């Protein structure tokens, strides 16, 4: 099996971010997408802690300890940025003003259900952050994740078994093995990572893949 590296995966997602888009990048792998947006496209990044227009990581020694993103990383402000408080920041998200959110996931179902905030392990304290607000409010949700979990079990399923983050919200899933759209009929193949066959990927997927 050919598997995209995290960096290749981020670059693949970045290809689908159009010029002028307002984008929220979730915690973890999605934060790497911005580094791969093709030259000539201006993308405006929102971070839910209260900034629109997140710029690149500051040079070492240039960090501003109060200027961070939702992943709590030091960031800069890009030209045209603005700051605002929490209620306004989430109004921006919930109100449908952000075009695209790129999120990680534990599981995605063929009806677009998203599970990315809690597992079935109740001993661990639950934490949701802004995940449910992004899922509910952003019209286009891209999920970026490994095709299967660490124990090899499928993450693309007929129905999620983990607690849901949002219902029917995922538009497209980017994995190391393939890119699939969520359609009214289920997962539809957009492309295979070069070198993989549909049969190979289907075998690692817990729901039918339409072509």
């Amino acid at each position, binding site marked *: 099996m050919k598997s995209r590296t995290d960096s290749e995966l981020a670059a693949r997602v970045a290809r689908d971010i159009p010029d002028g888009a307002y984008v929220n990048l979730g915690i973890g792998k999605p934060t790497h997408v911005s580094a791969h947006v093709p030259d000539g496209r201006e993308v405006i990044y929102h971070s839910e802690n209260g900034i629109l227009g997140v710029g690149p990581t500051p040079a070492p020694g240039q960090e501003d300890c109060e200027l961070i993103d939702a992943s709590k990383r030091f960031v800069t402000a890009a030209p045209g940025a603005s700051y605002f408080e*929490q209620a306004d920041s989430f109004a921006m998200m919930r109100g449908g003003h952000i075009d695209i959110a790129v999120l990680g996931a534990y599981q995605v179902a063929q009806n677009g259900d998203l599970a990315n905030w809690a597992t079935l392990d109740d001993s661990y*304290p639950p934490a*949701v952050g802004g*995940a449910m*607000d992004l899922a509910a409010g952003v019209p286009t949700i891209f999920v970026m994740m490994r095709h299967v979990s660490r124990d090899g079990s499928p993450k693309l399923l007929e129905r999620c078994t983990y607690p*849901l983050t949002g219902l029917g919200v995922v538009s497209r899933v980017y994995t190391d093995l393939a890119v699939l759209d969520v359609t009214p009929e289920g997962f539809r193949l957009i492309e295979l990572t070069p070198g993989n066959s549909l049969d190979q990927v289907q075998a690692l997927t817990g729901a039918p893949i339409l072509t």
Partner: protein
Amino acid sequence: MDKTVPDLARAVAPITDGASVMIGGFGASGIPFGLIDALLDHGATGLTVISNNAGAGDTGIGRLLKENRVAKVICSYPRSPGSVWFERRYEAGQIALEVVPQGTLAERMRAAGAGLGGFFTPTGYGTRLAEGKETRVIDGRGYVLEAPLSADFALLRAEAGDPWGNLRYRVTARNFNPVMATAARHAIAEVRHLSTQPLDPETVGTPGIFVQSLTEYGVRP
């Protein structure tokens, strides 16, 4: 009008055992570390802490948890890197936890501050966090009815303040501070710069009407 108090200790003096206390900040940005330390010295216990995170390491909310001053946490994301004291108290069953989606947390505070009785939000509809709550489908979309969330006190951090209680914020240190100021019955601010002159009215992030007292604490983390 002069809402300034001379030091952090006098600012937190009104906080009683069992009080609910909103604490501003996200990550380590905009956290009122000075007021939290003063609250520890003050000794109040059995607190309900309402904040986005549940502290990291041995500072801030982490220190309140370590010293066993907190009976309950209402937050969106208690599981930050280094939130060891929260996890320890939680696993030992020593603390109650209410997890609220971050936008719902902010909006519930805003509703309390704005005198609203509740609101229908799409966030969390159909999920475990909506269990037991009233839901409604409006124009084909599912919503959850959420209630206002107020508190006895709010501890805030701002870049500058004036004797009228006006606060000005800086970059992403703004975060939860303004909305918590509106939702608390008694809001207390530490400000990096205390101006004796009024702030420029165009730059005020929290109008003084929402602030009961403020004091200077120049340390930036």
